[in-house]
């Protein structure tokens, strides 16, 4: 039995957490067997229908009634090989059985792998990793239940039917090959592609780029920063949506100085303090690094696991706010901000000084960060937002790491899908979600949130990268 994801009536898809669900792979195998048995039955039906259509005596009756014979033959051909015909139906069942077997095989890896195997392929997002698809290859070789008998029937009775198998096979086979095709850009990109370097990955490639940046003017991340800070009025956040709205308020477009992060110290009625850090995403897209630490250079460096001036800004912010080593810290970020949050939570040097207990990340690729098991992670992803998939891997599925996905509204642009306030809307659904995993996860946020007797003070810290 392995954990998986589930879809709630609120449109959220939740993976991981305390309320996980399960799959029995022997049931999947049994179901795949039933599918292949049905496909075998269709193969027999295809042979029988082909033999009727090609009977010489039946064809000879055309001398007596050519028009009705032509119609009968046309309908037989359609029943055999038309778009709603036996052969196509058999191929579909074969393909479904194949995918189900792949899901069973892949279930010990991750629910996302299983979903990709039987559901829509999320190719643009690059979620499929080639390793998860390799089990399909020997299975694909075994998918001859329909095609071989049909081919034998065709050759035996000498039929030359306009059946659409040539058109259908590439489509059915293409679905099997699509993941491999999708993996090709990574595979053929020397020197970091997996064919050239089996250990390579998207974060690995980002690391190569970040390393290369050290020798040139582009993407050169110094990792150094100077900061200025000013107090700001604050009240404790009310939930995930409020947290993300506050992250959105750290962007220059919302009036904050470029390179800002915000720290809020929340004191409970018992006097205990907890700290919330709100980290926005990328604000500068030039590959040439500038003073704003939240730029493309930081994106590449953070994806590659390198130190960044933006992360250094967070460190200085907590220092200036007065966070103690035993105070719980929640890092909330959007896009690059979420990556920085995960990177800091995974950084032993940071966690020796600050006790990170929670990470809330919206629209961030997080799979590449080795966040310790003791840190509770909530990752929000929109299906039409490509940014969370930049790491090319699914998030881990574990008890205190929840990935909540939301399907898009129709016609939304990629930019709108990635917008921090759009994630704040999704955060409101999370706050109201009845999902057991989500409720359990949110219960842990109590020290950071508004409650009777709780107060807060804020600090806005502006980082400037230094060379």
């Amino acid at each position, binding site marked *: 039995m392995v954990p998986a994801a589930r879809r709630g009536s609120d449109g959220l898809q939740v993976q991981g957490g305390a309320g996980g669900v399960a*799959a029995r792979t022997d049931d*999947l195998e049994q179901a795949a067997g039933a599918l292949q048995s049905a496909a075998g039955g269709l193969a027999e039906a295809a042979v029988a229908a082909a033999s009727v259509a090609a009977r010489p005596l039946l064809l000879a009756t055309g001398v007596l009634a050519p028009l009705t014979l032509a119609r009968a033959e046309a309908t037989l051909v359609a029943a055999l090989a038309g778009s709603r015909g036996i052969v196509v139906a058999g191929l579909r069942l074969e393909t479904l059985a194949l995918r189900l077997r792949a899901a069973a095989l892949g279930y010990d890896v991750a629910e996302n792998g299983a979903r990709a195997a039987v559901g829509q392929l999320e190719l643009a997002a690059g979620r499929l990793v080639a390793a998860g698809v390799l089990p399909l290859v020997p299975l694909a070789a075994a998918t001859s239940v329909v095609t071989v008998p049909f081919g034998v029937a065709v050759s035996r009775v000498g039929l030359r039917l306009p059946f659409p198998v040539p058109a259908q096979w590439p489509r059915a086979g293409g679905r099997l090959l699509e993941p491999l095709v999708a993996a090709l850009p990574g595979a053929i990109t020397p020197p970091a592609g997996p064919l050239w370097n089996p250990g390579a990955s998207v974060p690995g490639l980002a690391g190569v780029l970040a390393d290369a940046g050290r020798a040139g003017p582009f993407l050169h991340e110094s990792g150094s920063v100077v900061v200025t800070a000013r107090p700001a009025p604050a009240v404790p956040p009310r939930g995930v949506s409020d947290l993300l709205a506050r992250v959105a308020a750290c962007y220059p477009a919302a009036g904050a100085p470029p390179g800002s992060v915000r720290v809020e110290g929340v004191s409970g009625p018992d006097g205990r303090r907890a700290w919330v850090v709100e980290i926005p995403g990328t604000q500068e897209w030039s590959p040439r690094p500038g003073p704003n630490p939240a730029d493309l250079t930081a994106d590449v460096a953070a994806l590659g696991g390198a130190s960044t001036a933006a992360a250094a800004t967070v460190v200085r912010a907590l220092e200036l706010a007065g966070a103690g080593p035993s105070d719980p810290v929640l890092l909330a970020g959007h896009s690059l901000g979420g990556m920085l949050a995960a990177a800091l939570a995974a950084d032993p040097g940071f966690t020796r000084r600050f006790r990170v207990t929670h990470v809330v990340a919206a629209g961030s690729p997080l799979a590449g960060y080795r966040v310790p098991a003791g840190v509770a992670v909530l990752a929000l992803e929109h299906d039409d937002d490509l940014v969370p998939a930049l790491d090319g891997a699914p998030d881990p599925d574990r008890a205190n790491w929840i990935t909540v996905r939301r399907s898009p509204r129709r016609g939304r642009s990629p930019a709108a899908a990635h917008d921090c306030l759009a994630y704040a809307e999704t955060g409101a659904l999370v706050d109201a979600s009845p999902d057991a995993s989500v409720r359990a996860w949110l219960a842990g946020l109590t020290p950071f949130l508004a409650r009777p007797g709780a107060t807060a003070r804020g600090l806005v810290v502006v980082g400037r990268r230094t060379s």
Partner: protein
Amino acid sequence: MDGNWVRRCAGEVGELSEQVRGLAAGLGAARAESWRSLAAEDYRATLEEQQRALAATAAVLDDARAALEAHARAVEDAAGGPLGALAGKAAELLGLHP
């Protein structure tokens, strides 16, 4: 060469149609109900779609059976005339037997 033989062909196609309907119903055994996840929901939706597709396949086979039955009637009508005798003789010479 007679209409009854063509009608028997139509009957065979009708049996194929029932066979396909049986296969569609049998797909219910492949629902893997113990599997609960997003992938499972996608899978079961696809499976139901395949059941509907098989029902459509059976309907197309019904059309083929009906077309063959219509052809059988046309053959019977034509077989009674001079062309029928000629065609029967030609089939005999060519060794075409039901």
